[in-house]
């Protein structure tokens, strides 16, 4: 806890990464070097640093930085809070500012669209309940976010409550607002013929408007007051000042008509009533549509089965899916959902995995195959052994990943939030300037008594300088609301990450979506990414012996090898029905080949270097080997007793969609690079068949990250596609690391994007989802900022001197509500988006590298 005595404060900071006494010294020294720190005591056993410091010279952030700079971590607590009552980007900024300034809070990210906040804090300095209290004091609800179905239920309940609340408000405000409008315009058009004159009575309008302002409109006054109490502003304040001022003028003009606000003919009851109605309409529609952008995660959560049939002591019992333990044998019947992840032990079936991997056809399952929790068993019955349960299942990890992605803000959103957050203050300054301008300058110069408000027959004849200036000032407040700016990015990011998840493409953050949309170059690791990673023998060239005999000798030499090429040769020999005995002796020479003794003869199988080293002449075989390598095959020379006897050529198979994926990426304007450890000739041959732009050949695994870095240094924005585990350094180095074919092992994956299937077309689909999402974000931001850019000058009365037309506050509120709805509806369009790469998923024949 933090303590203060005179000018000293004391804080206990959890430190991670300390392993020995020297770490203690390093951390102590680092802390004591911070100006203002008088004493730092570090305890290795408890992993804590107790620091006494002068708060006028240092703060907790300085101390944390010093620990990190020394190479250690700070054991912060992370809390996920569900925030209710947020309506706009300014609410985000308001909470972030208030909570972020609390001592002990290191970082807070608030997401408007999901209504959540992730807070990193030092529990030794501040307690979570103090953070929640700070948020509640601002006028929002704050509770710890639950997980899984409970969270789903609570989120749904809260959204429904908000929808119901705004609907009730709307049902009160809309009819009363409509009556007020009819009453206000009763003397105009044809209305005197159909409406009684008493409807225009100002006291009658006062009686109708007051419940609207004090009932449904009360929320704006309460929320803005709560914000101001903490010294922060939000959209509610814009509404409250707009509605409050319009209502106040109307009341003054009703009961003190000679006060100079335009008299009884210029009451703005309809402005106050309709302003409230339109804002509430906007909030209601937002509450309805905002829930839809998070539908993807809800769908995923719904996949989690509730029940499981487990064998316990030989008996089949029904248990809750949460109670299944790793190692349990689970029974699955046709039509049932698979409750947890596992491996099939008995039975055979076809399982629909489309909901998780995007694979459109049911996948056959036989003993030894993996099954994923949440997928649907179609035909047969089977038993499987649970391997991952609870939070470890692939489905839970996917949900976690999508949730995290939706919480992460891409750089564009951070800018938008910052702009929206500071906008409110700017709008109030603008409203003050506009008021002063029209009061002291504009009114005398341009006021026309016969001028009117846009789309109304309302003439401003009786309007005085104060009333006119106030009207424009209020209109600026209402029309400038940056709600749409705050919604523009998160609504699209939520829809985009959800769309990706539908196709088995998991973005780890909104920043990954933005980064993937800006790529210039995609680097594919060859083996296992563009090819299947399962080489096979394609050619056997024999000199002075039968081809089968040559293959058998090669297989005998390679039998004890663990190299994939050796396994391919042994497998090919067995496939031809050949007996493959053990060699009498065997030696593997990494990077060269193998040397063995069998039946009294020396057998060598390897590359040119090995043959040259052993002094074996290759003769005509060299030309033949080059020919094979030009076809993308790896040629290995066979020699017995110092004489060359032939060549065994091995090649990997290209994945069915590799060439299509490369072509599609090139059509998208991306440069496609293949990286491989193969020799240049083989690599060039494969590249030729795939159509990739360039090849990085003979690259050792550990050098891949350097190659990616080299490309980045040339100014390219690079994505690396590879195995999430073996290619981890290169994936981490790339601007976007795409881990392909993770299957159910999502948690192990590094990289910014995880593809559940090993189809290279999913890389294309990921890029397409990224581009579509960012295009949507840009459209939204364009509309949102475009609206404000166009609307604010109108609200300021820029066109009034030329046209005599002024935007009324109620029209301003309608425009503002429409801008928010436009943005949310535009984001919802992404729900219907199908990546072009996924539109035609025809299964092509596998392409052998030997097609030439």
């Amino acid at each position: 806890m933090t303590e203060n005595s005179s000018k000293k404060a004391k804080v206990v900071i959890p430190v991670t990464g300390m392993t020995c006494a020297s770490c203690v010294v390093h951390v102590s020294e680092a802390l004591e070097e911070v100006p203002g720190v008088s004493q730092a005591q570090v305890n290795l056993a408890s992993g804590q640093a107790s620091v006494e410091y002068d708060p006028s010279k240092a703060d907790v952030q300085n101390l944390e930085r010093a620990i990190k700079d020394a190479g250690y971590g700070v054991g912060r607590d992370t809390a996920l809070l569900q925030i209710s009552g947020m309506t706009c980007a300014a609410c985000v900024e308001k909470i972030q500012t208030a909570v972020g300034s609390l001592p002990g809070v290191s970082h807070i990210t608030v997401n408007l669209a999901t209504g959540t906040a992730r807070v990193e804090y030092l529990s030794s300095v501040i307690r979570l309940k103090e953070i929640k209290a700070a948020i509640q004091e601002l006028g929002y609800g704050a509770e710890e976010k639950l997980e899984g179905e409970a969270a789903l239920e609570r989120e749904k309940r809260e959204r429904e409550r908000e929808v119901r609340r705004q609907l009730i408000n709307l049902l009160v405000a809309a009819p009363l607002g409509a009556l007020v409008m009819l009453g206000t315009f009763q003397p105009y058009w044809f209305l005197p013929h159909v409406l009684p004159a008493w409807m225009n009575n100002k006291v009658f309008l006062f009686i109708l408007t007051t419940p609207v302002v004090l009932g449904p409109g009360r929320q704006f006054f309460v929320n803005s007051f709560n914000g101001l109490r903490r010294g922060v502003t939000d959209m509610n304040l814009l509404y409250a000042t707009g509605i409050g001022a319009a209502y106040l003028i109307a009341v003054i003009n009703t009961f003190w008509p000679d006060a100079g606000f335009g008299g009884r003919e210029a009451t703005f009851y309809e402005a106050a009533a309709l302003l409230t109605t339109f804002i509430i309409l906007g909030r209601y529609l937002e509450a309805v549509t905002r829930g839809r952008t998070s539908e993807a995660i809800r769908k995923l959560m719904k996949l989690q089965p509730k029940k499981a049939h487990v064998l316990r002591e030989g008996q089949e019992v029904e248990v809750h899916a949460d109670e299944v333990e790793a190692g349990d044998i689970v029974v699955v019947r046709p039509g049932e959902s698979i409750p947890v992840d596992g491996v099939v032990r008995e039975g055979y079936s076809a399982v629909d995995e489309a909901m998780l991997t995007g694979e459109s056809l049911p996948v056959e399952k036989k003993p030894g195959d993996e099954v994923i929790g949440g997928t649907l068993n179609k035909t047969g019955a089977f038993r499987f052994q649970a391997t991952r349960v609870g939070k470890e299942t692939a489905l839970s990890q996917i949900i976690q990943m999508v949730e995290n992605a939706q919480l992460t803000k891409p750089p564009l959103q951070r800018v938008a939030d910052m702009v929206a957050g500071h906008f409110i203050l700017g709008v109030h300054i603008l409203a003050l300037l506009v008021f002063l301008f029209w009061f002291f300058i504009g009114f005398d110069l341009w006021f026309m008594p016969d001028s009117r408000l846009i789309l109304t027959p309302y003439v401003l004849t009786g309007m005085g300088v104060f009333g006119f200036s106030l009207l424009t000032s209020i209109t600026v407040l209402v029309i400038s609301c940056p709600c749409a700016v705050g919604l523009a990015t998160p609504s699209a990011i939520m829809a985009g990450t959800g769309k990706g998840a539908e196709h088995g493409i998991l973005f780890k953050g909104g920043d990954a979506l933005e980064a993937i949309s800006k790529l210039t170059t995609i680097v594919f690791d060859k083996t296992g990414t563009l090819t299947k990673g399962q080489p096979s023998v394609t050619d056997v060239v024999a000199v002075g012996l039968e081809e089968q005999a040559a293959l058998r000798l090669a297989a005998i030499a390679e039998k004890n090898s663990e190299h994939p090429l050796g396994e391919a040769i042994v497998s090919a020999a067995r496939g031809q029905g050949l007996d493959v005995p053990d060699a009498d002796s065997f030696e593997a020479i990494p990077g060269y080949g193998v040397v063995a003794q069998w039946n009294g003869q020396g057998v060598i199988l390897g590359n040119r270097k090995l043959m040259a080293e052993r002094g074996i002449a290759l003769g005509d075989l060299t030309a033949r080997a080059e020919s094979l390598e030009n076809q993308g095959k790896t040629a290995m020379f066979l020699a017995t007793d110092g004489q060359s006897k032939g060549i065994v050529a091995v090649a990997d198979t290209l994945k069915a969609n590799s060439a299509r994926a490369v072509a599609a990426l090139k059509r998208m304007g991306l440069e496609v690079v293949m990286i491989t450890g193969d020799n240049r000739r083989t690599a060039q041959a494969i590249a030729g068949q795939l159509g990739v732009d360039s090849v990085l050949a003979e690259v050792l695994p550990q050098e891949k990250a350097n190659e990616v870095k080299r490309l980045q240094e040339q100014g390219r924005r690079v994505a690396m596609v590879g195995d999430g585990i073996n290619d981890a350094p290169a994936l981490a180095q790339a601007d976007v690391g795409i881990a392909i074919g993770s299957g159910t092992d999502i948690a192990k994956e590094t990289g910014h994007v995880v593809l559940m299937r090993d189809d290279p077309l999913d890389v294309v689909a990921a890029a397409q989802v990224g581009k579509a999402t960012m295009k949507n974000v840009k459209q939204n931001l364009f509309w949102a900022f475009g609206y404000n850019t166009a609307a604010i000058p109108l609200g300021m009365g820029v066109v009034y001197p030329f046209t005599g037309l002024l935007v009324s506050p109620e029209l301003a509120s309608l425009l503002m509500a429409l801008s928010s709805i436009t943005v949310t509806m535009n984001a919802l369009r992404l729900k219907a988006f199908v990546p072009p790469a996924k539109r035609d998923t025809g299964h092509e024949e596998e392409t052998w590298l030997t097609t030439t």
Partner: protein
Amino acid sequence: MADDYLKKALRVSYGVSTGLALLMGLGFFLVTSFTGDHTALARYGGASWVFTLALIIALPTVTPFVKRRIRSQV
């Protein structure tokens, strides 16, 4: 601890902001009283509106500054 510091910061910022806003409103009132031919309502009403907007502008501007000052004095 956190609460005490925040409460003190907010109290000070309310005072400073209200003072600034009152000055603005008073300035407006004096200018409109001695220049032009403004009605009493325009002068009083205008001064109130200027005070309200000035207070709304001052509070979020002054509060972070005051919080920083008070934190450094703790």
